[in-house]
């Protein structure tokens, strides 16, 4: 079925499906939908929540979804394999402030690890191997003067990390909100702010579309991008509304929702930070022998 570029149009209104992961990062699109930024541009938005790239990217490529949400490193990998997708606008970015970011490397209260360099040679949990987590954590260690080559990364869902750290199954875990709050609430400490260490104001994720849609229906892409940018800006300016909207599509505990650290939602993609991620990835060998062509993946 449908590789129909802009979805079915009904009185000029385009039905648009967006593949997202139901986490804090995508709050702007929900907020924007609520504020009518998409309806104003004749976009009838539906969110399809998947667990990650494995479900979202094929959906976008085949036209089942018009847009998707993915972290930058995954998109860079996709580019090296010539997956026909392209970024349309920014998704989410690091706050750039150590101590106040939405993700970091945590350890148990009584852990001997106190600074990033201590992570060398340890076992660290990340949500996906060979992706943005491990490359940026290595960079933190490297910058602190440690040797990242001996680190063992273990893959597990964020939700499991607090327990794994607590039980000593791993020495440290890279977690993001809301699991980060759970760890610190249980007395865990953050020893490294990997996003902050990797690059200033790191762009973490972006919205993308298939090359086919971009070629066939540039107007829809333009309208979506505008609406998205408006949403991003609105979210950045209204943290309270963000915390409120989280209650509608996540099950984050209301108390945690009030306290958790929100990310930044700039409308511009921080190109140098993407270049850094590309360099880090290449350094860690996650692109194989290829190097991502940034011009082909970024707008």
């Amino acid at each position: 079925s449908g590789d129909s570029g802009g979805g079915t149009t009904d009185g000029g209104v385009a039905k648009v499906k967006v593949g997202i992961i139901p986490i804090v990062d995508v709050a702007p699109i929900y907020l924007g939908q609520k504020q009518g930024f998409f309806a104003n541009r004749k976009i009838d938005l539906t969110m399809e929540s998947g667990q990650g790239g494995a479900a979202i990217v094929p959906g976008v490529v085949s036209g089942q979804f018009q847009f998707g949400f993915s972290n930058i490193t995954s998109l860079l990998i996709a580019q090296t394999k010539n997956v026909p997708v392209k970024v349309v606008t920014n998704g989410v970015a690091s706050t750039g402030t150590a101590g106040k970011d939405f993700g970091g490397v945590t350890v148990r209260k009584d852990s001997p690890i106190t600074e990033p360099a201590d992570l060398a040679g340890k076992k660290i949990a990340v949500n996906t191997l060979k992706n943005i987590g491990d490359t940026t954590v290595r960079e933190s260690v490297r910058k602190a003067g440690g040797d990242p080559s001996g680190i063992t990364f273990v893959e597990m869902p964020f939700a499991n990390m607090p327990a794994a750290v607590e039980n000593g199954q791993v020495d440290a875990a890279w977690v993001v909100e809301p699991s980060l709050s759970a760890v610190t609430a249980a007395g865990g400490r953050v020893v490294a702010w990997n996003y902050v260490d990797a690059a200033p104001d790191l762009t973490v994720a972006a919205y993308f579309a298939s090359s086919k849609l971009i070629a066939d229906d540039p107007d829809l892409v333009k309208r979506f991008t505008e609406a998205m940018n408006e949403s991003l800006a609105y979210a950045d300016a209204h943290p309270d509304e963000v915390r409120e909207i989280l209650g509608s599509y996540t099950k984050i505990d209301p108390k945690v929702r009030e306290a958790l650290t929100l990310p930044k939602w700039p409308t511009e993609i921080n190109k140098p930070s993407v270049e850094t991620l590309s360099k880090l990835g290449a350094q860690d060998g996650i692109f194989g022998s290829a190097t991502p062509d940034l011009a082909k993946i970024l707008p």
Partner: protein
Amino acid sequence: MIKRLLLVLGLPVVLFVTWYAASANSENFYAPPLRQILAAFVDTWTPERLRADVLPSLARLGAGYLLAALIGIAAGVAIGANPRLRAAAEPVLEFFRAVPPPVLVPVIMLFAGIGNGMKVIVIVSGCVWPVLLNTVEGVRATDGVLADTARAYGLTGAARLRHLLLPSASPQIIAGLRQALSIAIILMVISEMFAASNGLGFTIVQFQRSFAIPEMWSGIILLGLLGFGLSELFRLAERHALAWYHGLRDAQRRS
């Protein structure tokens, strides 16, 4: 021999040729031409790769499967032979049976950590069911006259188990073991989606995530080949273990 080879390979060859032809000009990123997949197969599954990824998987698979067979048969006999126990245990077992492994894994991780033990338990947790259910049903279906004979001659306890219940349930137990084999492979893949750093399932999932689609398909083909190879082994074992049964069933059919 040649006839058997023809029977075994006939349909697969036809299907592969069809696939090859149908996909030759495929533009779809996720459904590449078989040509590419086969090329990727050769490049990917080098002997080192097999040793590093397939061997650990097979070890976990073997351990999980054997454990599941043991538990399934032991518990199945106990439950099948004892209606009260069955009444008490069945709802709890059905409860766990309905919980999907991907959501069960985190719970298992709580208790079993993240090492090989966890993966083996995940395999067991999934493939014990067909063995258990079939054993229960097989034991329940033990012929009444035969059971009476055993009782009359004082076959109780272990002897009853060894000489009556197990052999008479064996056709169904074997059916369960057969089912469990392919489920074990499936769960091997699922278990390696969590906290793994090597293994066939892990590798396939990595390929999937890194958009190495021909390599991913080659991994799926390897899974299929693995399943086929194991089932051939199984068939040989079954021929041996159920010789009496096949003889009995074929006795009059062969004319």
